[in-house]
């Protein structure tokens, strides 16, 4: 066993993560890079052991890129990701292999992330094979154990992905992440493709497993009510940066950033009075090809002033555990 981390020791720390994707002209790479898509401009946050951190944002906010960069599925342009105080970029091949065992990924579309020509059993065994864990029989036993944990039947071992319903496929996706006995699971929109009655099943399983297996979850989603239900802490992303971060209850009791307020009020919710005041944002999220100067939100912000156009607001701790990136909000 590795030494127990104290409560204040983050298991994973992301420090000023930046990811740019090059854009080439019509002749490909021949004449160099035309410009860059600034998918993630400056993201820092910490994941503590056993918690669920929700990363929320609209499409194009860079939430998925953040998740993928943390896993090393795409290299970061700059910034650091520390796992148990080790910089991931400086890991040797062997260390990286161990890291990959500890951190797993669940994708949005369970069908396109499963090989259609393989049965579920071999799909689930493959990671064990790659990491050379156990012999054939042990691996099979492990698969049957995991199938049971995620609520599937032993006979599903021999089925193909197309024989499963959407909810079952997402259970297989979960099973594949769990089979390595990971410490962290990054879930990228795991319930967005599912119907509400199936969605609640998967959310329940996730919550249960987390408690049982002491998992740390990074939960990436655009769905505000889902993230409220599942997360302990939430980071709100807009155009490549985190604009607000707080404990879930604090955030929903009193969102501070103008974008967070607008986002929450845009959620259609049948529990709310139909005639309640809504903040409807004008315009759309700007292109990450040419993000606005200063505060990225100033083009849509109803309260924007001159300083917002000129200076980038940093994330400031406004209240205990609540950080906001806005010029107009100061510490109480």
């Amino acid at each position, binding site marked *: 066993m590795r030494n127990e981390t104290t409560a204040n020791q983050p298991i994973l720390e992301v420090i000023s993560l930046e990811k740019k994707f090059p854009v080439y002209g019509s002749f490909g790479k021949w004449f160099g890079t035309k410009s860059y898509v600034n998918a993630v401009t400056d993201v820092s946050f910490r994941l503590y052991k056993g918690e669920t951190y929700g990363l929320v944002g*609209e*499409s194009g906010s860079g939430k998925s890129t953040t998740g993928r960069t943390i896993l090393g599925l795409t290299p970061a342009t700059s910034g650091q990701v520390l796992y148990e105080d080790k910089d991931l970029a400086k890991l040797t091949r062997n260390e990286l292999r161990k890291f990959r065992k500890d951190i797993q990924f669940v994708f949005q579309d369970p069908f396109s992330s499963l090989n259609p020509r393989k049965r579920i059993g071999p799909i689930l065994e493959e990671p064990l094979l790659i990491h050379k864990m156990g012999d054939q029989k042990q691996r099979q036993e492990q698969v049957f154990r995991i199938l049971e944990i995620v609520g599937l039947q032993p006979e599903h071992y021999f089925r193909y992905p197309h024989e499963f*319903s*959407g*909810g079952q496929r997402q259970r297989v996706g979960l099973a594949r992440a769990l089979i390595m006995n990971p410490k962290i699971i990054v879930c990228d929109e795991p319930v967005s493709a599912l*119907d*509400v*009655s*199936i*969605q*609640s*099943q998967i*959310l*329940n399983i996730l*919550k249960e497993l987390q408690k049982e297996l002491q998992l740390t979850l990074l939960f990436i989603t*655009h769905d*505000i*009510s*889902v993230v*409220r*239900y*599942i997360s302990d802490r939430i980071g709100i992303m807009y155009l490549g940066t985190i604009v607000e971060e707080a404990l*879930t*209850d604090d955030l*929903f009791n009193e969102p501070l950033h103008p974008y967070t307020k*607008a*986002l929450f*009020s*845009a*959620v*259609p*919710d*049948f*529990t*709310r009075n*139909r005639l309640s005041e*809504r903040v*409807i*944002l004008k315009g*759309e*999220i700007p292109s990450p090809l040419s993000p606005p100067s200063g505060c990225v939100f100033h083009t849509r912000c109803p309260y924007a002033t001159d300083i917002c156009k000129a200076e980038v607001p940093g994330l400031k701790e406004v209240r205990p555990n609540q950080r906001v990136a806005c010029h107009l909000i100061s510490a109480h």
Partner: protein
Amino acid sequence: MNSVPLLEVKNLKTHFHTERGRVTAVNGVSFTINKGEIIGIVGESGCGKSVMSQSIIRLLEHTDSIEYEGEVRFDNQELLSMPISQLRAIRGDEIAMIFQDPLSSLNPVYTIGNQIVEVLRQHQKISKKEAHKKAIEVLRATGIPSPEIRVNDYPHQLSGGMQQRAMIAMALSCEPKLLIADEPTTALDVTIQAQIIELIMELNRTMGMGVLFITHDLGVVSEICTSVKVMYLGQIVEDTTTERLFATPLHPYTQGLIKSIPRMDGNRHEKLHVIEGTVPSIADIPRGCSFSTRCPYADERCFNEEPLMEKVNAEHSVKCWNYAAINNLEGRA
């Protein structure tokens, strides 16, 4: 309110003839829409809500393996038995439709303006120039900034929200009496969704058109619709006003759906409600009540006899044998 409904659907059934036999996707749906009303159809994937909406204007006609039954009356005309040429004059003119994915319903090789002009000239005797002017007007009405420039854009040059606005502009260009909106906001971000919902409601107010709004999102329904029909396996199982649906849902399926959504004011530490099992395949609809296989209250009768749509009061109908017992309404209803 107008005494003659704008659209009257009576016992509509849509069958597909497949290799494995006849499959009934829509199984006896009846409802009416009055002028200026926004009616919501809610259901999970596979409940037949999209097939139902497309059956109304017979969009599925090109497959000869399809069979309609029942009656669809629009403005005193019967759409299901009408010759297709006559129906074409109605589609796009008096009944318009918008779909979930705007990019795949817009023609990528024509400009937005071109496509709106085409709709206008198909249905109205106006010159190209006038049609172009009108195209700019409808684009402006849907809130597209600088429509004089945007009218010459190709679909891929617009963002998702703008594409959906362009679709709505096209649908509204002939000032339809009825708009069928099939999941128009599902592909959009919440802040953009809020804009589109606001737009549809405003156009409904100003133009007085009826709207059939199809969605899986109960939250969206609560924002926009005056009354709601809940569909399950090709049938309407509950039909009531929006207020009543959320305040006193009577059908066990509706109750399950509402409970399984994480609520913005709910307890985060409680387990979410789960509707047991999965939606059966429409090729294999259960005997008796179609929800019986997943219903926590199902008894002998539910498995054998199909319940009828029962009127609880003037505003509320439900298709369930035991709704009174489940909801403690015995003696009161």
